[in-house]
């Protein structure tokens, strides 16, 4: 099992390493966006404090979601997914391998974004950094599997991009970034409770602004874990359906 899982992780890393343009985008895209954000909010530290947690949670989700989703669509379109699923590889090994492979790239992106943000808000490194690492880990776990799940609904890369307005835009508006969740109409507040970014955003905000201990964000982390589990199950079904293409 370990050999097969590590082979998939190695495969993801090799593919990404050889794809120099994608590697460039993995590093450059967050750098460009974060530089832009620095210039925009440099004169308005108050606003920056408010948007910093949103930037970390939204970009960590978005980059990983797109990276995984598009790679998986390519796997399906080229026939390699079908082929590897005819080996001794199991669905969960594929998913863990993908997670391990992409986690490294997601971590690079999350590190760039987070370092920028923390630097901009003069965050002093202390024990709450552990909270942040756990939040990022769970966010990546969640978005890798969400990417795989949504890739099954898209037939090509273009359609995958279309999931940004469908899947992400409502989350950004309803996560409490612009208007606190409790100030939203009741209906929207309920919807917000069913969106993973709401919990990623809230826990990041409490961590970097309020400097809370892990106990105080344990509920958000648990819900993020539950979302991850749901997406893992859904993406396992997607992979298995590839094996039994019914």
């Amino acid at each position, binding site marked *: 099992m370990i*050999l*097969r899982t590590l*082979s*998939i992780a*190695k*495969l993801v890393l*090799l*593919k990404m390493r*050889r*794809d120099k343009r994608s590697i460039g985008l993995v590093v450059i895209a967050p750098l460009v966006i974060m530089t832009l954000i620095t210039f925009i909010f440099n004169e308005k530290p108050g606003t920056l404090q408010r948007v910093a947690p949103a930037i970390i949670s939204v970009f960590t989700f978005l980059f990983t979601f797109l990276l995984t989703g598009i790679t998986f669509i390519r796997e399906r379109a*080229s*026939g*390699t997914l*079908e*082929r*590897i699923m*005819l*080996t*001794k*590889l199991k669905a969960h090994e594929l998913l863990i391998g993908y997670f391990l492979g992409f986690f490294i790239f997601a971590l690079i992106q999350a590190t760039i974004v987070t370092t920028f943000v923390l630097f901009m808000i003069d965050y002093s490194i202390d024990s709450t950094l552990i909270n942040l690492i756990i939040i990022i880990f769970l966010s990546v776990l969640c978005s890798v599997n969400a990417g795989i799940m949504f890739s099954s609904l898209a037939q090509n890369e273009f359609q995958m991009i279309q999931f940004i307005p469908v899947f992400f835009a409502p989350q950004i508006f309803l996560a409490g970034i612009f208007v606190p969740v409790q100030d939203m109409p009741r209906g929207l507040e309920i919807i917000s409770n069913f969106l993973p970014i709401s919990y990623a955003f809230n826990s990041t905000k409490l961590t970097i602004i309020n400097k809370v201990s892990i106990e105080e964000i344990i509920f958000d982390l648990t819900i993020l874990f539950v979302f991850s589990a749901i997406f893992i199950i859904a993406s396992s079904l997607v992979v298995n359906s590839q*094996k*039994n*293409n*019914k």
Partner: protein
Amino acid sequence: MKEYISIKNLKFSYTKENFISELNIDIPKSCSVGLIGPSGSGKTTIIKLILGLLSPQKGSIKINNQNYSHNDLGYMPQQYALYEELSVNENLEIFSNLNNISKKSEVRKRSHELLNLIELSDKAKELVQNLSGGMKQRLSMAIAMINNPQILLLDEPTVGIDPVLRESFWNHFKKLNKNEITILITSHVMDDAMKCDKVIFFIEGKIVAYDTPVNLVKYTKTNNLGEAFVHIVNKGYKK
């Protein structure tokens, strides 16, 4: 000869219309059987049903009279299905590992054997994206054989391959048959069909003839398999 792959009363359709119904095929062990028919006749569907990539609505597929696992099968799809960003060696290594071939020395030995067979030893370190179509086809074939399968399912394996290499492939297939490997090969090339031990003429989800190439020509009183195919399509097949 005793049947090895046994397809009984198979029914499958993509839409509400019946595509394949009441299909029965018995394939003997250690044979090369050609599934020959025009595009869209259902050849790839049969392969995918045997692989378990599609599920039949009715009927059964058994190997050696029992249910089977994918581990007994080697599959070469119509599209290359290779990792283009990886080298030839890396592709072979990944697929070896995914088939539980873990020892580096074993992976190297197997890769070396297969690269010799497909005559790509000098391209071992080349990225797949830099190979020609024919080379990719050959690598895809090598990957199908990497797990030493008992049954090889080859979907249009000789497309894009020059006649000399095609001949060497067929020599290897015959060697595999001698080693008790059963090969089911789809093609619309009659040259391939002639080299098979038995040929299934398959049209619109139905078998119109299943016999040795020699018999197909003999009983249709034609000069070659191509003519035999046209004869059978128009007048049916009677021994």
